[in-house]
C-alpha cells in the first residue's frame, strides 16, 4: 500500500471501495492506476479526507472520477463526511500504476 493514511485498517476498507471507481477512458480503477495519494480519518469531526490525482490535469472525466471517489467513500463510511481534494503535486505518472494495473494495460 503506497497511500498515506493515519488509519491503515480503515484506509484498506476505503481502498476496497475505491476499486469500484473507474477511470472510464482507461477502464481501470483509480486505486490500481495509483491516483489515490492519501486517505485520512478525523474521528472527532467524523471526516474522511481523500487526496487524489488525475492522469492528466483538467481531464474531461475528472468531475466524474471525483464524484465517484466521494460516492464510493460515502457508501462505505455513511456516518462520515467526505472531503476530496485533487492534487498534481506530485503529478501522476505511470510508475504509480500497480502490477495488476500494468498487466491490464499491457493485455
Amino acid at each position, binding site marked *: 500500500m503506497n497511500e*498515506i493514511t493515519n488509519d491503515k485498517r480503515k484506509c484498506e476498507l476505503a481502498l476496497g*471501495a*475505491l476499486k*469500484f*471507481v*473507474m477511470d*472510464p*477512458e*482507461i*477502464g481501470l480503477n483509480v486505486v490500481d492506476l495509483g491516483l489515490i*495519494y*492519501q486517505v485520512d480519518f478525523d474521528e472527532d469531526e467524523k471526516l474522511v479526507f481523500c*487526496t487524489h490525482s*488525475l*492522469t*492528466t*490535469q*483538467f*481531464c*474531461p*472525466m*475528472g*468531475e*466524474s*472520477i*471525483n*464524484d*465517484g*471517489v*466521494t*460516492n*464510493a*467513500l460515502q*457508501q462505505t463510511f455513511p456516518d462520515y463526511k467526505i472531503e*476530496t*481534494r*485533487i*492534487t*498534481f*503535486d506530485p503529478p501522476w*505518472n*505511470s510508475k504509480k*500504476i500497480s502490477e495488476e494495473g500494468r498487466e491490464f*494495460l*499491457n*493485455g
Partner: protein
Amino acid sequence: MFPGATNNGLAKNTSYKVVLPFYLYAGLAFLIATILLIFSTPAFLQHYFHPHTFAITHIMALGWGTMMILGASHQLVPVLIEGKLYSNFLAYLSFGFAAIGIPLLAIGFYQFDFGWPTQLGAILINGAIIFYLINIGASMIKSKNENVHAVFVFTGTLWLMITIIVGLFLVYNFTYNILSKDSLSYLPLHAHLGIVGWFLMVVIGVGSRLIPMFLISKYSNDKLLWWIYSLINIALICFIIIFLFFKTISLYFIPLIAIAAALIMFGYYCFKCYSERIRKKVDYQVKISLLSVCMMALPLIFLFIVIILLMFSVSNIHLVLSYGFCIFFGWITAIIFGMTFKTLPFIVWNKVYHQKAGLGKTPNPKELFNDKIFLIMGVAYLLGFILFVTGVLISNEPIIKTASILLLISAVLYNGNVWKAVTHKLSKS
C-alpha cells in the same frame, strides 16, 4: 502532505445540451453530402467550378467539418484553457445561426442562384462564427491560462473568420461585382485560408492534446508545437502575399514547403506519443485518427504536382478535384470518425452515469456504441475513399458511383452509431 491540493485541476464540463446538437447536425450533413455525391457523379468528371461540387464542398466544410469542430471545441476548449466556457447562450446562438445558414448557402450553390437566400445564408454563417469567436476569446481571457493548444484553436478561429468574410464577399461578388476580379479567381485564397488556417490549425491544436491523452502517453513537446504553429502561420501569410501581389507560380513552393515541414513535425509528434504510450492496446478510434494524420500527406502530394504542372501552364482538373476530395472526405472525415467515438461516448456517459460513479458497475463509454459497426464503417469509408480518388483521377463514372455508395454506407453506419450513443439510457438492472 499535499499542500497544493485543491480542486483547481478539475475541468468544468460544458453541458451536453450545448454540444450534442452540433454532433447530430454534423452527422446529418455528412449523410446529405454522400447522398448528393451519388446524384452528382458526372460533376466529378468536369471542372471543379461546378454547382454540385461547390454545394457538396460547402456541406462538407461547413456542415460536417466546421459544425463538428464547433461542437467538440465547446466541450474541449474548457479542457484546453483549464477553465470553463464563457457562455452557453452564445454557443446556442452560434449553432442556430449556422444551422440555418449552411443549408441556405448549400442550396444556393446547388442551384447556382446567389440571390437573397444565399446571401442571407452567408451572413448567418458569419454571425455564427462571430458568436463562436467571442465565446472562445472571452473563455480564454477569463481563464488567463492559455497554452499552445488553446492558441492553436483561437488562431484557427481567427483564420476561419477571415475565410468566411472572404466567402461572404465572393457570394455578393457573383451578383454585384464588388471585387476587381470574378469570384472564381479568389477561390484558391478562400479555400486555403479555410483548409490550412481553420481545419489544419484546429485539428493539430486539438489533436496534439487529445492523441497523447487517449494513448496515455508520457510524451509532450510544446516547443515542437510552437514551431508547427509558427510554420503554418508563416505559410498562410506567405500564401496571401504571393496570391495577391505576385504572379510567379513557383513562389507557391514556399508556403507548400512550410506546411510540409509542419506536417512532418506533427507526424513526428504523433509517432513519439504512440511509441511512448502507457496503454499498449490501441482502439479503432485512435487508429483511424492516427491514419488521418498519415492521410494529410496525400493532398500535399497532389498540390505539389498541381503546382509543377501549373509552372508549365498545364492545368489538370482531375488532380485539383482529387486534392479537394482528399481534404474534405480524406483526413478531415477520418479524424472526425475517430474523434467522434472518443468524445461523444464520454459526453453521453457523463450525462447518464455522472451521479452513479463509484456506486456500482457502470458500462464503459466505449460500450455506448457498436464497435463492430464502427469497424464496418471504417472499412466502407476507406474503400470508398480510395475508389473515389481513383475514379476521379482516371475519369471513370462507374467507379465514382460505386465509391459514392460505399461512402453513403459509411455515413449511414456513422449516424446509426451516433444515434445509438446519444439515445443511451440508464439501464434499470
